[in-house]
């Protein structure tokens, strides 16, 4: 490309054509226009907004992100072309998408204690776990509809077992009192506000604090990782209590006598040498687990054997599997790096991506369930960052927490929910992930 032209003339113009996959109101005419080459993302966004405003007088300004050949533009256009070696002579095709940034911040939902776990996998509510031993169901910001009461110690992890069912949803919570509890939640039975729910099943079997819980897609089984280095599998089905696995028991010290089941673990996966800090169950027969012994393992549920393990070098706190083909493993732990591995690559000991902007331990990382590029990470430095695999910079930083963020999740595909040591659940809305 013409080096002299770039350097000598700052107001040099480039022929570009804006294309998009967005729907009608966001489309601009596809004829090529000439724009100055020193525009950055903001400048490009202004250009597109002006074009849209010209076609549609009611158009409200909207931030956009720009992709050239599948890469985000994060510097000025001419620098980008220079860095990538793209010719500026021909008409450049720039794809624009809506910027993945939160548009709106909801009022915080205040808890009594640190919010240790959030789950937004059900679109109707947010499930949170708290250090006061209570689980809470939030229908929207500040609206706590149900309280899950029963744990004797802090809840460390929560999960919605069967998100598909609308009428009655099973919830699972893991706690530092060495038990897991299963709860039934239905939206309709709301008498007082908030409703207190008691668990229908107590899962005992771990010898030390339970650190994480995850459910199978079908909702029949859940798995849990614990400080006693094991992963236990449990049945969620209440009809099975007659069998040898479960014992029926009545609680006497409660005013209302209600039936509570106690369940034993169906199977135990042994192999980790330290606290199993995170488990995910993305597919029917496979469990992924991350541990403080610096390894990530994949377990075959049928045989109980670990299929492979990735050695990371750092104690891991969180893990998620998703992305392209739901196979990429993202994990973070006792250092400020989010690492992403691709287990399909042969000899996968080194991560394929590393995201480095955090300042402290990573407490949570979650893939977006629709997009194969986006993930979020939460850190003890009080920030939640949104990442795109196509760029090394964070797309957005949500800096709403005053203290450590202990957990974060996507909600309804366009929001980020996060809970932290400032005892608040924060909801950031309006994130357009295409």
């Amino acid at each position: 490309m013409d080096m002299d032209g770039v350097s000598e003339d700052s107001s040099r113009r480039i022929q570009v054509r804006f294309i998009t996959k967005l729907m009608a109101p966001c489309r601009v005419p596809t004829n090529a226009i000439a724009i100055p080459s020193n525009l950055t993302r903001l400048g490009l966004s202004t250009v597109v907004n002006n074009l849209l405003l010209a076609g549609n007088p009611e158009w409200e300004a909207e931030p956009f992100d720009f992709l050239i050949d599948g890469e985000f533009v994060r510097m000025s256009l001419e620098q980008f072309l220079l860095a990538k070696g793209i010719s500026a002579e021909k008409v450049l095709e720039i794809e624009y998408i809506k910027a993945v940034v939160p548009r709106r911040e909801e009022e915080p939902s205040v808890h009594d204690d640190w919010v240790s776990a959030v789950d937004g996998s059900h679109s109707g509510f947010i499930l949170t776990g708290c250090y006061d031993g209570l689980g809470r169901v939030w229908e929207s910001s500040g609206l706590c509809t149900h309280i899950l009461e029963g744990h004797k110690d802090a809840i460390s992890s929560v999960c919605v077992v069967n998100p598909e069912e609308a009428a009655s949803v099973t919830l699972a919570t893991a706690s530092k009192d060495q038990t897991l509890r299963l709860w039934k939640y239905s939206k309709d039975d709301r008498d007082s506000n908030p409703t207190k729910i008691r668990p229908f099943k107590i899962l005992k079997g771990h010898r030390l604090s339970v650190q994480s819980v995850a459910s199978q897609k079908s909702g029949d089984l859940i798995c849990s990782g614990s400080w006693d280095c094991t992963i236990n599998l449990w049945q969620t089905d209440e009809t099975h209590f007659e069998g040898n696995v479960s014992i029926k028991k009545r609680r006497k010290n409660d005013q209302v006598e209600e039936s509570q089941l106690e369940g034993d673990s169906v199977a135990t996966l042994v192999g980790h040498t330290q606290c199993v800090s995170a488990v995910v169950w993305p597919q029917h027969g496979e469990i992924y687990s991350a541990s403080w012994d610096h390894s990530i393992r994949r377990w075959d549920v049928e045989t109980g054997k670990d299929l492979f393990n990735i050695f990371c070098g750092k104690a891991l706190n969180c893990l998620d599997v998703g992305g392209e083909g739901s196979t990429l493993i993202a994990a973070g732990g006792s250092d400020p790096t989010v690492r992403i591995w691709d287990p399909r690559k042969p000899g996968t000991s080194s991560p394929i991506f590393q995201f480095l902007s955090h300042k402290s331990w990573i407490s949570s990382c979650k893939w977006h369930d629709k997009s194969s590029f986006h993930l979020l990470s939460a850190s003890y430095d009080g920030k939640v960052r949104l990442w795109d695999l196509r760029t090394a910079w964070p797309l957005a930083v949500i800096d709403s927490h005053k203290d450590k963020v202990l957990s974060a999740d996507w909600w309804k595909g366009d929001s980020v929910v996060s809970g932290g040591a400032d005892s608040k659940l924060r909801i950031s809305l309006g994130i357009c992930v295409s």
Partner: protein
Amino acid sequence: MKLNLDAESSPQATRPKKKHGRKNSHLKPSKSHAEKQNSDELHLEQEAPTADEAPLQQHLDSASLSDSKEDVSDEFKDLKLSKARESGSADEQDHVNTGSPDNLDQENEDDNPIRDQVDEESDSSEDEVAPRNTIGDVPLEWYRDEKHIGYDISGKKILKKEREDKLQSFLASADDSKSWRKLYDEYNDEVIELSKEEVKQLRRLLKGKAPHADFDPYAPYVDWFKWDDAKHPLSNAPEPKRRFIRSKWEAKKVVQLVRAIRNGHIKFDKPKEEQRFYHLWGDDSSSTEKTAHLSYIPAPKPKFPGHDESYNPSLEYIPTQEEINSYQLMYDEDRPKFIPRRFTSMRSVPAYDNALKDAFERCLDLYLCPRVRKKRINIDPESLKPKLPSRKDLRPYPTTCYLEFRGHKDAVMSISTEANGQWIASGSLDGTVRIWEVETGRCLKVWELGEAVKYVAWNPLPELPILAAAVGVDVLLLNTGFGDGEVQAKVKELLHIDALPATDNSDKTPIATWLQDDKVEGIRLRHFKTVSSVEWHRKGDYLSTVMPAGESRGVVIHQLSRKLTQKIPFKLHGLPVSSIFHPTRSIFFVSTKKNVRVYDLLKQKLMKKLETGLREVSSIAVHPAGDNVIVGSREGKVCWFDMDLSSQPYKILSCHPKDVTNVAFHRSYPLFASCSDDCTAYVFHGMVYSDLTQNPLIRPLEILRGHKATNGRGVMDCKFHPRQPWLFTAGADSVIKLYCH
């Protein structure tokens, strides 16, 4: 050209022959005799008569040598004069006579000093002969690049004649049939043409004959000596044989030299090349020919004058009046010797009044100051460093602080990690014991004990979550409440005292009494003196407490299951500082202020005494394998003892500028750490090899900073995470920090 060169070299070529001839002339007629015969050859033959020969042969009867010399010279004069008159030959011949022998003289002046004398005398008598040597006693090459050669008598330069270039002179010589007889006299810068007679003479000389054709070398011997009437006849003995054969010893010496040259023992160096330029004012201490000698030590150079000693220095060199006044207040030694002043011109500078004194002092310096050659060894300081592995290869080790545990109101004195590494406990001067969750930094439990907590220790068994805390004279055994129902039941049973064990009815105050403490739901062990530290045995049943003021009962061992207290069955030497159980065997370490004593609890006897050599021991830690001990001291040193090796420290690391408050080993990683009142904690790599012949490898890894000094105290305690390469540090600034890898 070639001829010219030949001609030039011919005098030299003839020389040895001439010498030879002279040697041979012992038995020949004397020179004077020959000169009488051929006066023309006088100068060519002049060097022949030597001091020994001429008098011997001419004036055997003369009384003194000096007389004879004069006689000889007189004779020469006469001869010369006569020759000049007789021959009347051309000027050129004079040139030959005077010039060329002079040439020879220049080269052979060592050989016959008499020759010069003779020449001068003859010159003085013959005024008309112009002085031919215009350049004096200097090598000819000094005039190589000059335009002149020598000086005439009035001191003016004699310019060199312009020389034809080689081609022209060659052409000229080719044309000129006489050119082969011409030769160039460098000294006088002129061309000499030899006459035919001279050429003939030279030819004869080349052949080794006498120069003049008329000279008959084999003239019949005339015995001038009068043999008759001699009172004392000369010896008539025939000449001995040794005069005619060469010396045996000389021959041997020659053979020796020849061999040496052949074998290369004697080397002929190339002639030393004269340095064309040299540093006139150079420092003679560095000049090679002087330093080549052993003992030469150059005198120290006086200081060169600087700008301030100029007669008109810049204004900034001139001291102000105040400065001059302040000089008066200084000591004599410090006072500047010279005060710069300005003068308008050189002329107005007065005489230096200290000149004599300075010169005298300089002489004194040179004379009295002993100059000693210092022996210096050049050692690369890098090479003295021990070879240590790179820090990168020794990962993981704690480097960065990511988590802080905040909540204490005063200095945190002690921390202890739970066996799994899920929680840590801390005791602080604000009277609280807290339990924290490592993962999030959350404070889970607080006990308000009302008095400063000196020490906390978590029971090493994971199934016995009991915490021991030293508070004043008490040791509290606290139920942390972790674990499931079974564990809790067991702990509650352990921490319950049914009935007080049969108290000794001795008159002495008991060492410790076991009391139930309902407020904290634990056991209160009341000692008779303030407890400074508590350590658990690895099996979690015994715990030892140290009371520095307890004298002979300063170290006590309690048994939790039987609620028993006993003092150790060993005599204590000095103030006990801390005690610790061996990680695998029934061995007990007690450190006093000076030394560490190692006791075998089974055999109940002293095993070893580790001599620290430190002023005051502050802390001790035992390697998980049990054979190595580190000891921290109040003077900032950390000693590593290899107990198999010796009772002396294997390594002493003096890394902290202030007191070392605690030392710690990692349970599984080869790491150890020390923390100090200078607000830092040091992390070391301390690899102990199972091979007994290999010494432990110690390598400093990282200095961990971050704590703030409070009341002069820095980091009070450090403990490693039991499973991760992480370090907890407790600071006097009431913060606990977790450093991760």
